């Protein structure tokens, strides 16, 4: 009992610099989870479709960028071209997947996104090869090195890359939040998410809205891909990080942008703390399942998530 309820807190108190370091590491991976979840939320809000392909879109966006760079395109230009490719993808998805399937059951659309996943995996491997690639960082202006903070004799190391990632993610999220709450496209998007028929009857064109959200999800995917790729490598294995978005979404709610952010941070920080301070008690390796246990608990007691739309049902 002591080991579970007392000892971890004693450790946190006795080594505060290490505790802060753990919190920071958790926060950084939380930001990345938030970004992935955000990609899902955008598309789910606008079309009620759970986009299974979000994970592979992250890989595909990052690979396109690195691939272009390897072909000799300068760093910044390759970012812009990669954005262009994500736009082309959004346009094609709308034209050849969403539009022919309009009005179909959600499950059909979900299956279509699984199909898209396989197309992107196959297409991506054909174009870029299956080998992992190193992410370009300094070439696109991302800082490297550490920033060391020594509070009262302790030592906490912040990687500059992580700081940059947090700032960029924050700006991206703020931009999207303003876009969706204050613009007419934002309102149109919420309308489309609610009722397609009613939306078109007030003059909202579904096609344009879908291109917008898929492109927004593509931008988020590219940013996620760059950040995540910089921490490891860009490879097709990255797409499984998308699975981590599921517990985040359960926690935050499938329809809430703030939910995706808070959910991501809770999961990121929570799993890090649990692994470091409690993991040893049960043999470690808790990071792979901790998030799902939290999600299960939420499903039991608050199925709409922290910030999800209230489930209103009139009988």
């Amino acid at each position, binding site marked *: 009992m002591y080991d579970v309820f007392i000892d971890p807190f004693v450790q946190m108190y006795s080594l505060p610099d290490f505790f802060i370091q753990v919190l920071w590491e958790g926060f950084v991976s939380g930001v990345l989870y938030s970004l992935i979840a955000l990609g899902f939320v955008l598309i789910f809000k606008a079309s009620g479709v759970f986009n299974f392909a979000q994970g592979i879109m992250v890989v595909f966006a990052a690979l396109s960028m690195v691939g272009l760079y390897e072909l000799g395109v300068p760093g910044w230009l390759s970012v812009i071209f990669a954005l262009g490719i994500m736009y082309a993808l959004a346009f094609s998805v709308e034209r050849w997947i969403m539009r022919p399937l309009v009005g179909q059951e959600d499950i059909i659309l979900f299956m279509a996104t699984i199909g898209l996943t396989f197309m992107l995996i196959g297409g991506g491997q054909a174009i870029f090869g299956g080998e992992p690639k190193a992410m370009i960082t300094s070439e696109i202006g991302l800082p490297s090195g550490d920033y060391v903070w020594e509070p009262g004799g302790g030592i906490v190391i912040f990687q500059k890359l992580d700081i940059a990632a947090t700032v960029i993610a924050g700006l991206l999220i703020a*931009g999207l939040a*303003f*876009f969706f709450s*204050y*613009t*007419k*496209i934002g*309102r*149109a998007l*919420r*309308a489309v*998410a*609610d*009722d397609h*028929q*009613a*939306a*078109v*009857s*007030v*003059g*909202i*064109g*579904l096609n344009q809205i879908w291109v917008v959200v898929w492109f927004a999800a593509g931008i988020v995917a590219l940013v996620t891909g760059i950040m995540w790729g910089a921490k490891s490598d860009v490879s097709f294995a990255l797409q499984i990080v998308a699975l981590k978005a599921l517990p985040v979404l359960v926690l935050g709610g499938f*329809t809430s942008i703030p939910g995706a952010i808070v959910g991501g941070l809770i999961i990121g920080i929570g799993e890090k703390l649990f692994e470091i301070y409690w993991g040893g008690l049960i043999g470690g390796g808790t990071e792979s399942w901790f998030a799902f246990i939290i999600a299960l608990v939420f499903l039991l007691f608050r199925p709409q998530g922290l910030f999800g*739309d*209230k489930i*209103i049902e*009139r009988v």
Partner: protein
Amino acid sequence: MNQAVQVPDSADTFVTPDGRTVGPVMMDIRNIVLRFGGVTAIKDVSFNIMKGEVRAIIGPNGAGKSSMINVINGFYHPQEGEIWFNGKKRPSMKPYEVAEQGIARTFQNIALFHGMSTLDNIMTGRQLKMKTGFFWQMLRYGKAIEEETEHRAVVEEIIDFLEIQHIRKAPVGSLPYGLRKRVELARALAMEPDLLLLDEPMAGMNVEEKEDMSRFIIDVNEQYGTTIALIEHDMGVVMDLADRVVVLDYGKLLADGTPDEVQSNQAVIDAYLGV
């Protein structure tokens, strides 16, 4: 048996019993045929809607009334026939393009944005009227703010008009049926349409709610001069509201004329009494 009642001369205007001048023709529907596979929902139906009138479309269940509204609105595309709007032949259009032309509608089974508040629902009706770029809207700067305020003013006026001030902030999913019907009407009005299509605006309402809704429809028509085409089953309501009535039966045009003419038409009486 099946002959149509005399239609008022289509190119002209006419004066209604209560003294409003109606016309000229706003929408001319010519020889519409709509098929779903082997079923023909609308069989060669022609009629017109004149500017400023309240036009009712009636008929037994399955007569093709809702299909007709859906054809006008662009949800269905007829295999044959033409629709002329404001003197021009309309190409095949998507519903949102029809909305851009100034045609708004409500639905038989209320189609609202359930997660949004009453106010936001009605604001979606202003969607087509908003012109500022999304960049300024995001920054809430300059013209964008002015524009938002302007649209809010219009919406507030409609809210007052339909007497739904008290539910302004309520999520529409939580509202009772009668009020939701009213919010849907408000959203359609927010589009400031030239032609308003109402698919059974009074279905499922009690007598008092029906009276309220009738009053709103008359007021909309009189105050804003909006042309209205409505589907309704309650004959009493139709006879009170409508300037002219189209009667459909099994997808065919049975009669077309003033309420009095239609009521005394033998074919209509037979269809309704099931003879």
